C-alpha cells in the first residue's frame, strides 16, 4: 500500500475528483470509439507514424488548442476566485497550483506548440520544399512535446500539481518548501518537451538555410520564413540553458545536490538567473513568428508589398541579439548594485527600438493600401494598438528604479498579458484563420469569426487594463485573496467580466469550426485570399509531396508575380518524387520518454533503467536501419495532379 500512497493527491478537492472521473471517461470513450469504428490502424498508419510536416503541424495545432482550453479553464478559475474580496472558491494551495499550471501550459504547451504548428505547416510550403530537412526528427519533436504535455497534465490527478509559479523560483521550489512531487513534474515534463523544441530549432534552421527553392536568396524569403529562421536560431541557443537549469533543479530535488539551495555553497538566485537567460529570449521566440504572420497578413489584405523589407529583417536580427542581453530586468529587485541594473535597463529600452520599427513598417504598409477587413486582418489591426500599450508598459518596467514599484504587482501581469495576447494569441488565431483553407480545404465563416474577434479583443482589454490600476494601487500578483478595504474588488470584478468575454470568444471559435466544417463551401480554389507567397501556389488539399515540380523564384513575392506580372513559377517537367518513409520509432521512443519521466518523478528507479534502455534501443535501431525512403512513381504523380485539376 505504501507504494501507492505516493500517487495520491496531497491536497484533494471535489474539482479534482470530478476531473479524475472526467479524464477516465474521456479516455474510455476515445478507446471505445477507436475500436468501434475500427480506426486504430488508420490512426497508426496515417498519424502516429507520419513524418509529413503538414500532418505534424496539424497534430501540433490540435494539441495547442487542447492546451489553450486547459489553460483557459485555469484562468477562469483564478479570475473567479479574485472577482470578489475574500472569496472561498479556491484555497491558497489550489490557487497556487492553478496559476502555476496556467503559466506553464500557456507558454510551453500552448503558445510554443501553436507557433511550431504554423511553422511546420507553412514554412516548407513557403520556401517551395517537399518537407523539412529531417522529417523523422520532426516527428520525434512532436511526440516528445506531446508526451511532455501529457505528463504535465497528469500531475493534476496523480501526485499533485506544481505550485511554485511558472518561474518555479528556488528555494520555494526546493524540497523543503515544495515537498510534493509537483515540482518534479515541472522539471521533467518541461525537460522532455524542451528537447523536442530544441530539435525543432535545429531542424528548421537547416530546412530554411538548405532547402529553399532555386532563386530564393535569403533576402527574397517571405517574412514569415524569416521570422521562423530567427525564432529557431533563438530556440537553438536559448533552450540549452533551460535544459541545464532544469537538470540542475532535478538533481537538487532528487539526488540531494545543492545548486540552488541557500546553504552549503548553493545559490538560489542562480536558478532565477538561468531561468531568465532562457526566459527572456523565450518571449521573443513567441512573438517573432507572430510578427511574421502579421507581415504576411497585412501585406495580403492591404494589397501592397511589405513596407521596409530590409528594415524588418534587420530589426529581427537585432532583436535576436538583444533578446539575450536583457534578462536581468526580471529581477531588478534582487539586490544587485545600481550599476548592474542601469546596464540592463539600457539594453531593455534598446530592445523596444527594433520592435517599434516593425510597428511603423506595418503602419506604412497599411497607409494607402486597399484594405480588406477579413478576420485575419482584424486581428492584425487589433494587435497594433494593444501590443503597443503592452510594449510601452514594458519600457516602464524596464526602468529599474521604477520597477521597484511595479515588480510582482498586477501591473506586471497586465504588461505581459497585453503583449502576449495580441502578440501571440491574436497572431495564432489570425494565422489559423488565414491558413485554415490550405490546411483543411474550406474557409472559416467570416461573420462568426468577426463576432469571436470582437469578444476576444474587447475581452482582453476589459480583463487586463484594470490590472494596471489595481497593480499601481498595490495589488500583488499571485495573491489568492484580498480584503474588502483594499478597494481592489471593483477592478477585479471588471477583470472577471473581461475574462468571461474572452471565454465566450473562444467558444464562438469552436462553434465556428463546427459550423464551417458542416456548411462551408469546399469549392474555394487554391488561393482564396488572393495571397502573395508560395504556399498558395500549390493545390488545396496539398498533395503529400507539396509541389509536383519545384517552383523557381526571383522575388520575395513570387506567387504574386506569377499571377500578375507574368513570372513563370513551374518550369520543370514532372518527375518521380523521392519521399521519406513513415516510422513508428519516434512515437515509441517518446512513449518511453513518458515512462522515463513518470518514473523519475516518483523515483521508481527500475522504471527509469528499463525505459532508458528502451530509448537507447530506439537510437541503436535508427543507427543500423537502412531506410532510403520511397519513390512516388511518375504515373502516380500525374494521376494526383490531374485529380487536383491538372498540374500548372
Amino acid at each position, binding site marked *: 500500500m505504501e507504494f501507492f500512497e505516493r500517487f495520491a493527491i496531497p491536497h484533494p478537492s471535489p474539482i479534482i475528483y470530478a476531473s479524475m472521473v472526467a479524464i477516465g471517461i474521456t479516455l474510455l470513450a476515445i478507446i471505445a470509439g477507436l475500436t468501434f469504428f475500427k480506426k486504430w490502424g488508420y490512426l497508426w498508419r496515417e498519424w502516429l507514424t507520419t513524418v509529413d510536416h503538414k500532418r505534424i503541424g496539424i497534430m501540433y495545432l490540435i494539441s495547442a488548442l487542447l492546451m489553450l482550453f486547459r489553460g483557459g479553464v485555469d484562468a477562469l478559475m483564478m479570475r473567479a476566485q479574485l472577482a470578489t474580496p475574500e472569496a472561498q472558491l479556491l484555497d491558497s494551495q489550489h490557487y497556487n497550483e492553478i496559476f502555476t499550471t496556467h503559466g506553464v501550459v500557456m507558454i510551453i504547451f500552448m503558445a510554443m506548440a501553436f507557433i511550431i504548428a504554423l511553422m511546420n505547416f507553412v514554412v516548407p510550403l513557403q520556401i517551395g520544399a517537399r518537407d523539412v530537412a529531417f522529417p523523422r526528427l520532426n516527428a520525434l519533436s512532436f511526440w516528445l512535446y506531446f508526451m511532455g504535455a501529457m505528463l504535465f497534465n497528469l500531475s493534476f490527478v496523480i501526485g499533485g500539481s506544481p505550485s511554485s509559479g511558472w518561474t518555479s523560483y528556488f528555494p520555494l521550489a526546493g524540497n523543503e518548501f515544495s515537498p510534493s512531487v509537483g515540482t518534479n513534474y515541472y522539471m521533467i515534463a518541461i525537460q522532455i518537451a524542451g528537447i523536442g523544441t530544441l530539435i525543432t530549432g535545429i531542424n528548421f534552421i537547416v530546412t530554411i538555410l538548405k532547402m529553399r527553392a532555386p532563386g530564393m536568396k535569403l533576402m527574397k524569403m517571405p517574412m514569415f520564413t524569416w521570422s521562423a529562421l530567427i525564432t529557431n536560431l533563438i530556440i537553438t541557443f536559448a533552450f540549452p540553458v533551460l535544459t541545464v537549469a532544469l537538470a540542475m533543479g532535478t538533481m537538487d530535488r532528487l539526488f540531494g545536490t545543492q545548486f540552488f539551495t541557500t546553504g552549503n555553497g548553493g545559490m538560489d538566485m542562480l536558478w532565477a*538567473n538561468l531561468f531568465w537567460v532562457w526566459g527572456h529570449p523565450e518571449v521573443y521566440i513567441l512573438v517573432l513568428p507572430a510578427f511574421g504572420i502579421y507581415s504576411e497578413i497585412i501585406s495580403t489584405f492591404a494589397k501592397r508589398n511589405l513596407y521596409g523589407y530590409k528594415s524588418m529583417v534587420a530589426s529581427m536580427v537585432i532583436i535576436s541579439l538583444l533578446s539575450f*542581453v536583457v534578462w536581468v530586468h526580471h529581477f531588478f529587485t*534582487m*539586490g*544587485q548594485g545600481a550599476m*548592474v541594473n542601469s*546596464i540592463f535597463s539600457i539594453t531593455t529600452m534598446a530592445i523596444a527600438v527594433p520592435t517599434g520599427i516593425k510597428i511603423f513598417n506595418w503602419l506604412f504598409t497599411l497607409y494607402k493600401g486597399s484594405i480588406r477587413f477579413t478576420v485575419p486582418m482584424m486581428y492584425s489591426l487589433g494587435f497594433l494598438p494593444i501590443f503597443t500599450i503592452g510594449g510601452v508598459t514594458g519600457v516602464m518596467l524596464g526602468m529599474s528604479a521604477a520597477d521597484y514599484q511595479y515588480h510582482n504587482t498586477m501591473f506586471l501581469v497586465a504588461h505581459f498579458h497585453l503583449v502576449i495576447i495580441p502578440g501571440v494569441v491574436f497572431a495564432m488565431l489570425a494565422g489559423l484563420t488565414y491558413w485554415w483553407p490550405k490546411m483543411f480545404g474550406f474557409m472559416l465563416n467570416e461573420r462568426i469569426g468577426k463576432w469571436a474577434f470582437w469578444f476576444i479583443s474587447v475581452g482582453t482589454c476589459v480583463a487586463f487594463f484594470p490590472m494596471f490600476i489595481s497593480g499601481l494601487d498595490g495589488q500583488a500578483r499571485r495573491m489568492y485573496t484580498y480584503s474588502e478595504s483594499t478597494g481592489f474588488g471593483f477592478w477585479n470584478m471588471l477583470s472577471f467580466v473581461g475574462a468571461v468575454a474572452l471565454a465566450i470568444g473562444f467558444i464562438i471559435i469552436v462553434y465556428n469550426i463546427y459550423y464551417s466544417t458542416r456548411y462551408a463551401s469546399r469549392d474555394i480554389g487554391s488561393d482564396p485570399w488572393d495571397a502573395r507567397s508560395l504556399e498558395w501556389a500549390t493545390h488545396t488539399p496539398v498533395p503529400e509531396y507539396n509541389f509536383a515540380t519545384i517552383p523557381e523564384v526571383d522575388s520575395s513575392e513570387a506567387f504574386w508575380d506569377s499571377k500578375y506580372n507574368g513570372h513563370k513559377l513551374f518550369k520543370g517537367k514532372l518527375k518521380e518524387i523521392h519521399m521519406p518513409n513513415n516510422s513508428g520509432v519516434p512515437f515509441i521512443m517518446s512513449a518511453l520518454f513518458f515512462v522515463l519521466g513518470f518514473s523519475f518523478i516518483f523515483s521508481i528507479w527500475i522504471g527509469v533503467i528499463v525505459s532508458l534502455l528502451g530509448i537507447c534501443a530506439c537510437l541503436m535501431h535508427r543507427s543500423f536501419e537502412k531506410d532510403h525512403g520511397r519513390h512516388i512513381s511518375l504515373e502516380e504523380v500525374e494521376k494526383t495532379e490531374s485529380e487536383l485539376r491538372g498540374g500548372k
Partner: protein
Amino acid sequence: MKELFPLKQVMGFVFSLVLTAVALSVVMFDMSFAMGMTILLITAFVQAMLQLMVFMHARETEDSGLILANVYYGVFIAVVTVFGSLLALIWGYM
C-alpha cells in the same frame, strides 16, 4: 603527390598536440594561478578554433559564411551569458 598528402590536417594535428603539451605544462611546472589560467584559456581557445577550421571544415564549403555566422552568434551568446551572470550575481552584487 601533393594533393594526396593531407598536409594541412597533419600540421593541424601536430599543432593541436603542441597546444595540449603547453596546456599540460600548467600542472608540470610550478606557476602562479593567474599564469596557469591564462595559459589554459589561450590554449583552449586556439584549440577550439583549430578544430573548427581544420577538422570540422568550417571554412571549406560555399556556405561557410553561414556556418561562421552561427559560430560567432554562439560565441556572442556564451560570452554575454557567462559574464552577464557573473556581473549580476557576483561582481555587481553588494
